[in-house]
């Protein structure tokens, strides 16, 4: 009985969609990540800082030579055995186990930072 009336009304009724259900300040992706996974991905500057810290405290390294751009063999004068030790120290600092194939590729502070940034378990 009211059917035709209802459809006639509905045909002309338009509710503006703007402003409804919109979040005032959209949450950025990184916020979601850091909320969702405690620890999650790390901040690049902080990782670099920690890697530099560990490197500076390694026995065979002259702390004054340690820059974020330094390479282990040329700039810091480490041999391959020392690099293994240093990478182990980094493992301990970041609580990860770096597999051999990856560990062999780490030959500078930047390499280490890149690897640790890409490892979701690093903390």
């Amino acid at each position, binding site marked *: 009985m009211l059917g035709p009336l209802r459809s006639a009304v509905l045909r002309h009724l338009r509710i503006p969609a703007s402003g409804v259900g919109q979040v005032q300040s959209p949450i950025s992706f990184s916020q979601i990540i850091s909320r969702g996974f405690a620890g999650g991905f790390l901040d690049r500057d902080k990782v670099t800082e920690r890697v530099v810290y560990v490197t500076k405290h390694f026995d065979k390294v002259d702390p004054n030579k340690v820059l974020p751009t330094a390479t282990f063999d040329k700039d810091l004068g480490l041999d*391959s*055995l020392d690099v*293994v030790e240093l990478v*182990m120290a980094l493992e301990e600092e970041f609580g990860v186990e770096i597999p051999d194939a990856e560990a062999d590729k780490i030959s500078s502070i930047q390499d280490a930072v890149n690897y640790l940034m890409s490892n979701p378990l690093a903390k």
Partner: protein
Amino acid sequence: MVAAQEVLHLYRMFLREGRKFNSYNIREYILRRARMGFHENKASPNADELVQQAREDLKMVQRQSLVYSLYGRGTKSILELTRSKDHGAAEDASQLA
């Protein structure tokens, strides 16, 4: 001639296995001995023999690590107070005070 990669792998295994020991004395000895041995002989002419020896020793360390893990006590040595996560020497000093 053995590959450098294998030597590094052995070295890494030694350090990894050595870290597992609960007892401060054993752990530090094994780590120190591994560091010393590898560094001393890094340019040794009879590397093949030494690597063979290292393989055997690694197996021994692995066996001992298992045995020690069965009997090890959780108590820490006083020397381990400086190994706290924050690397804070001042903090350790206040712990002792």
